[in-house]
């Protein structure tokens, strides 16, 4: 703050000095013009002879004294101009206009180049923002028309009836032999897809949105073997308690799922851990925001290909 006030006062003084200097220059120029005019045209007097010469010399002397005074005044004013302290705050960059060897110093072109690149970067960021907004990775549609007054009711992936999901899997089972899909008793959102006698895919579906997916061997169990609560489930319960949102409902659902189903433990076989990785990639790749049913269909097809590779 102090520095700013000081700079303002210096600038004010400088402005006043410059204004006075301009007046002084005008006076100097007038004086010089007058001197030359007197030299050129001479001085008209009523007296004769030698008096004329004396008058002329005296007048010329006066003119020169006037010019000298004006010049001295201007010189003193220019001398009293104060240097702005901007240069100090800007570091060496502030002195760039004083650089005597401009062409040899690389800093100026570098600064220019940096400015250009920052401009380009801003442009790219704007383009990326536009593209990202167009293909939003979010799985809900709420963000599309938040600011518009008339919000259109968009179709949501959550809006599908469970009967519709069941019908979809029934059709799938009928179309492909060796595929068995059933809802897990402990949780209605969990589907157990058995592919041949090789592997099983455990799908946690929120309507047609795949929330979690894990591949295990055909003979591996999907329940907790010893009935104990896994660490992950404990974490879920603790989070529920901390959030205290819909506590009773949340806790009852979490505990019923956690105590029986094991949706977190990876397969103990390396091959199925690898397949889980690939299937997860496929799940993300085939995610279509506008066509959730197609996402599940494509994912199932890719999983069948993966299982056929094993046989």
């Amino acid at each position, binding site marked *: 703050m102090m520095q700013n006030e000081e700079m303002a006062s210096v600038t004010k003084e400088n402005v006043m000095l410059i204004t006075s200097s301009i007046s002084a220059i005008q006076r100097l120029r007038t004086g010089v013009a007058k001197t030359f005019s007197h030299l050129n045209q001479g001085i008209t007097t009523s007296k004769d002879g030698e008096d004329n010469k004396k008058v002329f010399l005296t007048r010329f002397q006066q003119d020169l004294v006037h010019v000298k005074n004006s010049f001295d005044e201007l010189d003193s004013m220019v001398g009293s101009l104060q240097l702005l302290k901007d240069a100090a705050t800007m570091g060496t960059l502030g002195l760039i206009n004083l650089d005597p060897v401009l062409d040899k110093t690389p800093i100026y072109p570098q600064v220019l180049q940096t400015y250009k690149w920052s401009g380009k970067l801003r442009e790219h960021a704007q383009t990326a923002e536009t593209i990202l907004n167009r293909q939003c990775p979010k799985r809900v549609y709420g963000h599309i028309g938040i600011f518009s007054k008339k919000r259109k009711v968009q179709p949501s992936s959550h809006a599908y009836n469970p009967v519709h999901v069941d019908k979809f899997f029934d059709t799938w089972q009928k179309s492909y032999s060796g595929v068995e899909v059933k809802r897990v008793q402990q949780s209605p959102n969990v589907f157990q897809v058995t592919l041949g*006698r090789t592997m099983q895919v455990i799908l946690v579906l929120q309507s047609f949105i795949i929330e979690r997916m894990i591949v295990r061997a*055909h003979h591996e169990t999907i329940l907790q073997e010893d009935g104990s609560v896994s660490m992950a489930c404990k974490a879920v319960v603790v989070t529920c308690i901390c959030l205290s949102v819909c506590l009773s409902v949340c806790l009852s659902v979490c505990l019923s799922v956690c105590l029986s189903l094991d949706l977190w433990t990876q397969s103990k076989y390396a091959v199925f851990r690898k397949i889980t990785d690939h299937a997860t990639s496929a799940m993300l790749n085939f995610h279509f925001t506008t066509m959730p049913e197609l996402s599940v269909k494509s994912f199932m097809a890719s999983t069948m290909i993966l299982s056929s590779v094993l046989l």
Partner: protein
Amino acid sequence: MGVTCVTQWPVAEGKSMQQTVDFLTKKAEFMGATKTGTFAVDCDTFHASAGNPKFINVLHNSEYPKTTFSITDSNSTLVSDTGFDAILQKLKGIYSTKMSSRIESKGKRYQLADFIVKVGIVSIGSSNRGILVEVEYTPCVILQDCWPLLTEFMQGFLGNGFVPKPPSNLVNKVDVYQPLDTINQYLEHFNQFRKAQVPTR
């Protein structure tokens, strides 16, 4: 538990049995397998007394330390708790065994991703009879589904010339592979070693 193939491996020319086993284990280690302990499969044969030709083969596998597998001469099988051994001891008057007839395969156990490799020396008493190599592919329980993969792995391990054939009793098996199927394979090989002449080396 997965599909398992047990096969005999001949002793290399000019080498001892131990040297051949060392060669195989080094090869497994070279492939990237890690040693995960030792293993043992043993078989005691209990003969019925008083001129009765009936007998029971009682086998143990260190993979299933609390289980006893019993197979009779008529191929009836019983998978029971190890307490069954104590019952047999009580039936000394009806079924008896000789400690010298005990045959076992002992060696090191290796694991390479989902494959388990066991290389064991078969011995009756103090006499070494041969080498048995067991390869198990753990993620699969259907023999037909993974036999080609198992064959490929064994050819990589034992050499391209080696073509393992599925055990005769398992060729048409469509059910899930059981630990008893592995025990049957061991028993088949143990019987062959018993009938074979004692090797000179």
